[in-house]
């Protein structure tokens, strides 16, 4: 009978040693790993530390980010929806990071560690970072805005404020409202302003104190509608009648940040207009947030 080739001594021994060692390591890891997770006690202690030093305007984050729901069980009362759904992290000077397994948060990047303590499997760091001074938050100040719809022929109709939104006539979904949106499976506080067929949705803020930059974030809300449709949405930003840029948002773009340099007009008050249009507006839930920053 022909016999199969035996593993050569050296390869065989190496394979045997590797598999045996792996079996032991994997078994040990499976037994030990559950004990490496943070306990309720760790979370309570870490939360107490944060509460003791927390100041209004601080940002509290979890690292890795997937631990955020547990973080909010302990500190959710200090994280309002506006902060949880923040446009980005730039405005926060003090960041509390509760981390595990050596992870760090992007929100704490670029800062200096002012405090650091360990509570079991959790590490609390307070990070001091240079923050952007926000001169005007377009989402928070949505009641300052005037909205209108401009038809293909150029005729324009006003969209008066009705309860919690600006409602354009004749088209039920043609609204502008501040709400939590889901873009790229993350929640943001934004203005939801769906584009309309053969028309432009115009949102104008008449008196905006400008800083050195105007930061605009755009995205498409609602995972089911991103699945259903793929049309792009264009946002045109006009400052005091001068065209400053068009940003196109597609399904895969996520929450895209666009920066317009307004250094030359810093300190001035200007009218800022957002014009929203799409060649295929079906199921496009366009969301935007913007801040004028120094």
């Amino acid at each position, binding site marked *: 009978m022909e016999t199969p080739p035996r593993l050569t001594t050296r390869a065989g021994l190496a394979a*045997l040693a590797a598999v045996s060692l792996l079996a032991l390591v994997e078994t040990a890891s499976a037994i030990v790993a559950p004990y490496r997770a943070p306990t309720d006690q760790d979370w309570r202690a870490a939360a107490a530390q944060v509460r003791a030093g927390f100041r209004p305007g601080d940002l509290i984050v979890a690292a890795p980010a997937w631990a955020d729901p547990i973080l909010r069980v302990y500190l959710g009362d200090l994280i309002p929806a506006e902060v949880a759904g923040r446009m980005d992290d730039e405005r926060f000077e003090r960041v509390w990071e509760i981390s595990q397994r050596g992870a760090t948060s992007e929100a704490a990047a670029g800062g200096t560690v002012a405090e650091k303590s360990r509570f079991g499997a959790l590490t609390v760091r307070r990070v001091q970072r240079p923050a952007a001074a926000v001169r005007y938050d377009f989402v928070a100040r949505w009641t300052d805005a005037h909205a209108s719809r401009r038809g293909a022929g150029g005729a324009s109709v006003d969209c008066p404020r009705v309860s919690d939104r600006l409602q354009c006539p004749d088209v039920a979904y043609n609204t502008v409202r501040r709400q939590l*949106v889901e873009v790229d499976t993350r929640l943001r506080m934004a203005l939801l302003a769906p584009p309309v067929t053969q028309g432009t949705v115009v949102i104008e803020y008449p008196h905006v104190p400008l800083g050195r930059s105007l930061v605009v974030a755009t995205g498409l809300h609602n995972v089911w509608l991103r699945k259903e449709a793929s049309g792009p949405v264009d946002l045109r930003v006009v400052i005091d009648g001068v065209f400053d840029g068009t940003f196109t948002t597609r399904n895969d773009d996520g929450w895209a940040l666009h920066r317009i340099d307004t250094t030359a007009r810093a300190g001035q008050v200007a009218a800022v207009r957002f014009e929203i249009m799409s060649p295929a507006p079906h199921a496009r839930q366009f969301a935007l947030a913007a801040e004028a920053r120094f």
Partner: protein
Amino acid sequence: MKIPRLDTRRIDGLITFGLALATVIWLLAVEGRQGFGRDEGQYFRAGERYWGWFEELGSNVANGEFKRSFTAPVIDRYWTDNAPDHPVIMKTLYGMSWRAFHRCHCTGATRGLHPIPVKGRHITLPLFARESTAFRFPAILFAALLVAMVYRFARGWLSRPPAAAAAVLTLAQPHYFFHAPISCFDAPITTMAFAVGFAYWKSLRSRRWGIAAGVLFGVSLGVKHNAWLMPIFLVGHYLWMRRGDLRARRFPRPPLAFVAMLVLGPIIFFAHWPWLWNSPVTRTRMYINRHLQHEHYNFEYLGFNWNNPPTTTGRKLIRSTAPLVGTALTVPVTTLALAAVGIAALVRRRRGQPVAPEGPEEGPANAGDQKPSWLQPGADVDRAPGAFLLVQTLGPLAVLSVPSTPIFGGVKHFMTAMPYLAVLAGIGASRLIPVLAGLLPAARARLRQFAPAAFAVLVCLPAVVETRRSHPDGLSHYNLLAGGFAGGASLGMNRQFWGYAVVPMLDVINRDEPANRAMYWHDVIHDAVNMYKRDGRLALEVGDTGFGEDALRRSQTGILFYEKHWAIYESWFWDSYGTTKPFMVREREGVPLVTMYRRGAP
């Protein structure tokens, strides 16, 4: 007392039985901790409804109206449930098992929670305290059958310790183990894929098994639509095995197994599913189209939410890695390493050689005096075991590598590969055992004797421990390479689906004040809620406000399963409940699985 000496056949029989029994015991011991997934809730309902047809058939026979049960309205009343989605063999078994083995409280407070009218107290063999266990029992038996078959199949090549290791490693895979005890089809079709492959393999040198392959294929068609793929993999192997014919410009003779599958498969498929009987062509087309045009449900993989076929080259490349990466990050790493050794051994194997050092020769000489024919087409050639295991393992993975196929089921979509992967691991173990024995001094004969079994135990240990660790959240679990639950979450791998992970929260919900019982269940479907109540695990007073945003806004308490695409639901909680602070989070090793909000909670 003289202990009777067992022959080889009997020892193997006992080991086979022991492995199957251990499987049943392990699964029955732990299945209750695992909640009911969306699909399982539907199959409970459908299974019980299908049983209703048999119940009515019995009444009709007793009343001399036998034919009445076969009229279109009566058939459709019962069998349209969950049609055209899935054929009905398993669901029917679940329904029958429930009817036979549940402990009946059916005329009590839960009477109205059944999908068919309860006419009176059921006389049963009350094996199981929970009704859901009675539904699940056939799936558990199918898992036991698979473990037994893997041992028998591997024994064709390997000695007992590595063959038993292959069987254990089949079960001891966290994702397979998750699917094994539940009343769904993914574990049963894994059993059937192995059964069909086993029968085909035997049919290459035995005419009896050719017919059996056809029958088993027909049954597979009645279990799940994955069965459509089985012949493709087997034809691939057959053409490779008979590549000599192709080289000689001869078309290989179609073997009995394929003929039987072609003839018996459709007959059994049609015969088993009453819903098809009254409109066979239209409804078969509906069934096929349902799966050929299946929606891409949301699924997280490597941090992306996949819910449509990818359109860019980059995304297509990422998507195509899903089955391979999914396997690499979910199967215990020691099993993967052993399988790699097994693959290396098969690659080095020459035609005719045994698969394992101590195994039988594989070449035609071992086929005895059988003459090659379409009845035993492997009699005159090496059966190419390496190619067989390759197509059975890589075939399902390859299909799911095509970017346009949906991946919403994760490992379950290519789980039919896993028993064959375990066989490869068994082959790997068989190659390392002689190396280990060679290290032991010849004088220590007893030590050498036990070395194979000890090594088999060693290589099974991590898989068993890891599987135990994963339960009941097998879908959230990732292996040592990924870094466990937390590593999987950090890599952006899918954490769960089907809304099953709620069992540890039921006590909290039960203890809640009556004012909070307007409950939003998110992804736990109403059939599952009903079954928790029928099982006595959920208070009957707990409500179900329904699905979607309006239902959430009507609720006082609500849960949210963590899946990437459900984020929008959390915004509704924040908005409607006026807080971002959950009342509690159900987690595993620090990884959130289910978040609970309570309106007005501090």
